[in-house]
């Protein structure tokens, strides 16, 4: 495309009825730990 560059292969729609295995790392949202915000994580099953 000339006006748009998509930089990722998004997965949200693909997992709206799946996922949930829960094997991923916990993700603290607070400031006192290194807040492993969810958006910074990688899915454990895709590692």
């Amino acid at each position: 495309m000339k006006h748009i560059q998509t930089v990722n292969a998004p997965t949200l729609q693909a997992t709206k009825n799946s996922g949930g295995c829960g094997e991923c790392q916990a993700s603290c949202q607070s400031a006192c730990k290194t807040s492993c915000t969810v958006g910074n994580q990688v899915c454990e099953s895709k590692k």
Partner: protein
Amino acid sequence: MNKEMSKKIHKFVQNGMYILLDINSGAVHVIDEMIYDIMDYFDGENDTEVINNLSDKYSEGDLQEALSELHSLMDINQLFAPDIAVPPTFKEKGLVKSLCLMTAHDCNMRCKYCFGDTGEYGGERQLMSEEVGKAAVDYIISHSGLRKHCEIDFFGGEPLINMPLVKTVTEYVRKREQETGKVFKLTLTTNGLALHDDNIKWLNDNNISLVLSTDGRKETHDNMRPDCGGQPTYDKIMKNFRKCVDSRHGENYYMRGTYTAENLDFTQDVKAMADAGFDILSMEPVVLKDSPYALTEEMLPEIFAEYDRLTEFYLKRHREGKGFFFFHFNMDLSNGPCVAKRLAGCGSGHEYYAVAANGDLYPCHQFVGRKKYKLGDVFNDLDEGAEEITRYFRESHVLNKDKCKDCWAKFFCSGGCHANADLFNDDIRIPYETGCAIQKKRLECALAVQATLALEKIGTKNFTPATSNC
């Protein structure tokens, strides 16, 4: 644009780059200025209206070409993707997979911003006993179901002042792993003051991940993180951290800092960490109420400008071959968590508990000492009525919180920190607004960083907008 469609996208300019995020697919598009302008009007089916509104600025041919590209994205669900509901895989009840052990309600430092009252957590100074530690391990094993991966974080206060407990729990974990097939990840968060050759060796030999706390520049650190006698600690802890990180070959650690109202130029603190030879870094905004060190709404413009500078610095170092990991800029946009995880968030109160030194269970380490959130204890499980609290935490996800439902950042931040929401609003479903504002800015920076790196990797770094804001 009609209001419903505008809730499905977020567009912004960061470090000179125009970016369009499709919220419900997670697609990140780097766009030019024309598309950026078009998205003020375009709702998927009003091409004529868009052309009429922008014909003074762009030619009709160019607009039609751009609109055609947008329709192509819609065809593959990467623009205006359908709303997301709670997935069927998001179970009603969470399985406990992570515990934070408050190994010591005591500390050998007196950091001025400590949320745990320098270790006391609103109670008495106390060390966790071996009995409590082992019961906590049994608790997570019996409450994690078929889940293979579990986590324990040795936290405090300062966990190194209760090293016998850390060792006993670790040995017990390894024994129970053999018996159950579970795999534990163990982490220890330390201020570094009590690190020495022997415990460094033990931590390395036992594969304990480390979170190392320092605030960056010597003057920043010494201002906020004195020892119990009020003496500076920077020189001591940096010497220990150097030895420790070198001994584990620069791996399996994070160095984290906290910025406050006193160092809003925190890029200099990140730089100080990087220049000291550490390259796995994090810098967090302090969360305080009614404190001279607190971050306030009035400081947000300065904080946002500092994140712009941090982004520039991060990319500059990366391009010079002297790059470092900065936790909040790390983001795998193509292999991120599933929707269920994004709803579960940190898991506080349903997948993640803190165990106080006396064995009491709380939704997370930040809630320890807030009496109304005591859930039970590791010996007797949840108290009567506590299941209601855990259910409330489970259901307090972004699709149930009024302020999160329509926020573009909801699938990245998962609604923010419940403890902070409780601290500021006395309700875990009303997010802490200053924290949200900082989080959103940080996410825009992270998305810009990832977009920049992705474009540079595929060799289209010349795809830059015609104009920029910096």
